């Protein structure tokens, strides 16, 4: 199967520092791939490179088989992006934020569709017409997730998507991510949440100082072994 997202020997520099070094991985449709790493490992850099917001120093980035640098517009059209601690417009309501960003993406929608997406992320109906300035961090994140859902794209790029969510919301979100993948979407998620990654991902790539230093695949039954991933993340051998 053709990978929806591919990074081939990808190296990226930011402020003259090499942030990603010769990284290669792919994400197939229906698959959740988690890039796991600590602060400064290069996780977000990988996402921004897929979005064409950063230019590779070397290597290739492909979205649905086409080089991002050759057709950035096409790549963005099929990609929804959920930034870390997404800050939508605080002076607008949830409905207004969603309508605004969907209009930017030229995605046709109506209020009923907005409400369905907000139902899906469990945002209270009475809050939807209030300004985001009055929302908690978790509520704002839910609106951003609803936006990613409403884009209805075959590829989702999630940057620390559960940051700021409470444990129940995290479980709900992980369930949602799994159901989206089951709808044949390719999902690339970057996170430092080992437990969340193991719960939801089909494969995990471990990034350390810009290099892909390990990988884990979900077994045919069950989940990726959290303990093993945690040990690798912490740089110690598994007992």
């Amino acid at each position, binding site marked *: 199967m053709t990978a929806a997202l591919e990074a081939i020997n990808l190296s990226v520099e930011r402020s003259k520092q090499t942030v990603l070094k010769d990284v290669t991985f792919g994400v197939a449709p229906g698959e959740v791939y988690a890039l796991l790493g600590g602060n400064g490992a290069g996780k977000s850099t990988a996402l*921004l490179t897929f*979005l064409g*917001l950063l230019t590779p120093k070397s290597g290739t980035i492909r979205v649905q088989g086409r080089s991002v640098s050759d057709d950035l*517009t096409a790549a*963005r*059209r099929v*990609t*929804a*992006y959920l*930034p*870390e*601690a*997404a*800050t*939508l*417009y605080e*002076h*607008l309501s949830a409905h*207004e934020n969603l*309508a*605004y*960003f969907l*209009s*930017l*993406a*030229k995605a046709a929608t109506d209020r009923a569709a907005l409400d369905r997406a907000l139902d899906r992320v469990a945002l209270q109906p009475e809050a939807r017409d209030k300004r985001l300035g009055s929302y908690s961090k978790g509520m704002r994140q839910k609106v*951003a997730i609803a*936006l990613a859902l409403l*884009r209805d794209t075959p590829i989702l*790029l999630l940057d620390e998507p559960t940051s700021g969510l409470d444990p129940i919301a995290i479980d709900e979100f992980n369930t949602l991510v799994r159901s989206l993948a089951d709808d044949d979407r390719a999902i690339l998620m970057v996170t430092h949440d080992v437990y969340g990654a193991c719960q939801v991902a089909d494969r995990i790539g471990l990034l350390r100082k810009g290099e892909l230093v390990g990988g884990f695949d979900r077994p045919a039954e069950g989940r990726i072994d959290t303990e093993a991933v945690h040990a690798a993340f912490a740089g110690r051998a598994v007992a």
Partner: protein
Amino acid sequence: MSGFGRELWFLWRDRAAKVWLLIGFAAAGLAVVFGLMEIAAQRETIERLKTADEIERAVTTEAHREDWGSAAYYTFHLSYDAPEAFAFAALGQRDASPWKHRIRMLALEGQIHETDAANPDFALIGRFDFAFVAAMIAPLILIMLLHDLRSGERASGRYNLLSATSADARMLWLSRAAWRVGALAFVLLVPLWIAGFVSGAGAPKLLGASLALLAHLLFWWAVIACVNTRTWTSTVNLTTLIGLWLAFAVVAPAAIKAGVDAAIEVPEGGDIMLTQREAVNDAWDLPQEATMKPFVERHPDMAPYAAIEGTFEWKWYYAFQQVGDQIAEPLSIAYREGRARRDALASRLTWLSPPAKLERALQRLASTDATAALQYEDEVRAFHAELRAYFYPPMFRGEPVTDAMLAERPNFE
């Protein structure tokens, strides 16, 4: 939400932008109201003076008709430069240069320049008129509206989301900025057009002023866009842009003025007045021939009547008034030519300062620039020459004052 209306709607929901636009509207509104009031006051002054001048001339004419010398000596003549309908937008030189004189048939140059005095309140920044708002305040408001267009989004973590979500990110920033520029132009121009229709300024002038303002805003938009291409913070952007505003709007005009003044010397109006008055005062102590000779050279048609028989004759008196003007003439010509050359050089150099260029353009449209001020001085000189041409022949020939002749006395129109 359509792409076209989206950014307009977004602007409408931006409280800070609305506050700045409201400030722009209030500033433009106040400026045109002040301008209309000032022009109305100037017109009222002219009408009041015209009425008073007619009454006074009738009284003095009746009281001093024993000879032409007395009739000329005691009669004042009002001259004025009535403001154009569009002058409310740019008061220009009307603050610094006189727009009304009460002149007599004495030496003229002193009368023209006796009110020359720069108003220190207005010398630096000018009056609060529409030209000032458009040239100085509008760029500041535009800077406030645009300086953090991208940097603000970066700081709040939305920039990547906006770029990644937008089907055409360049159009997003372009349309977001364009609506702000357009909205600012709208709030500035609406008061101008309303005031223009109230005052009776023609559509061509209003259109010309609107185009000049739009060109000015486009210049500042380009400047701000250049700064915004850097990935600086909003604070750095704002500081840089305020620095550029200071350079273009304050430092450059001051440097241009200083450079032009240094490059082209122009006699002071006070020097002209002093030269003329000293010449007139000295004439009392000089032999009468010393006055009549240069006078006759200028007026050969008066030669047959130039002999002075007594210790005082009006024709000698008026001759040394005229000779006073003749002695001051080189200075006066240098003054007029110098001011015109300074104006021409400043006009070229103000391309370096778009705010100054805009002010000049609006003052030209309003006929309140240096050219208009010099033209008014020339009109006063022409009128004074008419007075001399009217009074000299009967005065020198010793003819009696008649009602028929008085009815033909020139009036300034």
